[in-house]
């Protein structure tokens, strides 16, 4: 499973990465367009439930209070938060994260992360499209 689901614009950036970094990875064009509207994202944010993850609430509080960037870390947050997190920010948010990751891509681990994000986004778009 070394496939990245990238939009045509994202593919251009990916293609410009060093050959050694891109080696072994294949691309599929992300053609789905069921991104969330402003209203849908707002509803998701209100629906978000992180009761089981108090670490998230603490971090969010730190952000709103102006904590220094270097003090913010997800290391204490369990991976199990990922589904709720991804749903809350939507395919729209995942696209922003992917854009940022593409700008700082440096190694295979980053590519694995990009693969994961693209797959999550693809599945999110499928979910969005299935229910309107």
């Amino acid at each position, binding site marked *: 499973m070394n496939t990245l689901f990238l939009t045509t614009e994202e593919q251009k950036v990916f293609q410009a990465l060093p050959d050694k970094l891109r080696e072994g990875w294949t691309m599929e064009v992300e053609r789905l367009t069921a991104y969330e509207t402003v209203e849908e994202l707002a509803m998701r944010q209100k629906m978000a439930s992180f009761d089981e993850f108090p670490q998230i609430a603490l971090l969010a509080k730190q952000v709103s209070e102006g904590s220094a960037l270097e003090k913010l870390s997800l290391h204490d947050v369990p991976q199990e938060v990922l589904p709720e997190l991804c749903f809350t920010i939507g395919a729209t948010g995942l696209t922003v994260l992917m854009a940022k990751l593409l700008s700082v891509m440096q190694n295979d681990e980053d590519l694995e*992360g990009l693969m994961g994000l693209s797959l999550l986004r693809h599945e999110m778009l499928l979910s969005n499209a299935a229910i309107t």
Partner: protein
Amino acid sequence: MATATPSVGSEKPGAFPIFRNRAEMVDYARKLGFKKIEEFESALDSVEKREKLVEALRKRDPKLNGQVESLIKHLKLNKQEIARKERWYEKVLKLPGRATKATWETMKRHPAITLLILAALVAGGAYLAWDQLGGLVTVPNPMEGASAVADTVAPTTGGAFEAIPQGGIIPSNPMPGPTGAPNLPLPPSPTGGAADLFPPNTPR
């Protein structure tokens, strides 16, 4: 998997309810007099079947007046997103463990991505739709180049994002949302190390 404790959706006097899951929506429907959730959902989806719902909503909140249609629209949207969330959880738990692990490790490894995630949660996700809100919110425009997303945030987050009350920034008549991939300007093709391209702490 995160699950909300089934309970009545959060309701403040005069505010529209928000249901985090189907159980909360079912509870609300029952209080309105709908014995079956399917009947409630049909009433939301079909104008022809709406009379009972309108009557129940007005009885529950006599001050609703002209906001009935807005409330119904809100409830429909909530219903839709609950259904999407259920479907999403079905899918995500079947994804390869490698993909989700890699995603999480990457999110933790990059402070800028961590901040983006937390900012989305704090600012209600609305910053992601900056273009659509057209300057109604007083946060830096994170869409001025994806590479500038982290650069527009000062080393301390103070001042980068003003506290925005939940739901307080969404206008009553929001501009239409995007119908395709977000129009995010992507970073230029790297010519060397990626870090060279984006000087840190670029002033907003």
